[in-house]
């Protein structure tokens, strides 16, 4: 048995699920191969960790709560709440998109009629006051103009 095959069989070996015909060859290989022997020990250590992990018990009164839950579900019949909870994100997203489309279209209609000119005028640069010639901006513009002329 080579290292590659041995590596594939480590888990089954540790779990006692390795077929009898493979066990002898597997054990013989790990005796002679240090790398594979270390790999087996690593998996064994991990397996031992799990053995130390905590075992949780159902909380006190669990069965009573389940029976009460069943009784309440039987009394109520089918409820839309779980369905709503499951799809709540999608519903909220759709509502937001729909609201956005409606309000966007409403605003654009109003703007088209009332404020279009105002918005268009804001694109023209002549809304700004001319730069005073003595200011830093004025000096800069004058220098840029001279440079452009050259």
């Amino acid at each position: 048995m080579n290292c590659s095959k041995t590596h594939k069989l480590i888990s089954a070996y540790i779990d006692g699920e390795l077929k009898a015909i493979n066990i002898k060859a597997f054990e013989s290989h790990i005796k002679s191969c240090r790398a594979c022997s270390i790999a087996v020990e690593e998996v064994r250590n991990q397996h031992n960790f799990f053995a130390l992990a905590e075992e949780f018990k159902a909380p006190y009164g669990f069965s009573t709560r389940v029976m009460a839950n069943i009784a309440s579900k039987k009394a109520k019949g089918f409820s839309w709440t779980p369905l709503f909870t499951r799809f709540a994100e999608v519903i909220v997203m759709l509502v937001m998109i729909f609201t956005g489309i409606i309000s966007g279209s409403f605003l654009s209609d109003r703007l088209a009629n009332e404020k279009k000119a105002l918005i268009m005028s804001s694109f023209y640069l002549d809304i700004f006051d001319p730069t005073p010639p003595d200011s830093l901006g004025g000096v800069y513009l004058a220098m840029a103009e001279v440079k452009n002329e050259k």
Partner: protein
Amino acid sequence: MSNSSEDLSIIDRFKNSDEAVFEKLILKYQDRIYNLCRHMLGNAHDAEDAAQDTFVKAYRNLTKFKPESSLYTWLYRIAVNTCLDYKKRPLFASLFRKSDEGDELIREHSSSWPSPERLYESKQIGLALHGGIRKLSPKLRTVIILKEIEGLSYEGIADILEVSIGTVKSRIARARDDLKVLLKDFTEQK
């Protein structure tokens, strides 16, 4: 895995309209199902909800259950699928939940108290394992919990997940390889 005579009696009585007998079934399996959910989901609130959902689903479908199948496997299959659905739960449903890592450690050990050192070590290992398990993909997380925490055989896991034994074998090997990397820091400290 065949059903015990007690399970068969419960199923039979349930099918004959004795619905109260279902509580016996809960009492018999609640610890194993809760433990599975607790390890799959990582927190007490979700684990209890998922375990409750498992039994509610079992209650609804027990009349359709075929006694020749294994009740234990059937319950585990419901629990695994419920937990996987919980993992996929929308953000909306999880917004109102708070994290309570390990808050039930004390109240769940009403008898046979372990020593403080043992409790501390177990807690540390539990946290490290949970941290590692949580980073595994759902498929790998499920097989490693069923194998290492629940101690099921490859055949039992294959029955629960309805996959081949070869698939179980390869998933367990991959989960261990991934966990080896994820738990590297913790194991080096030990």
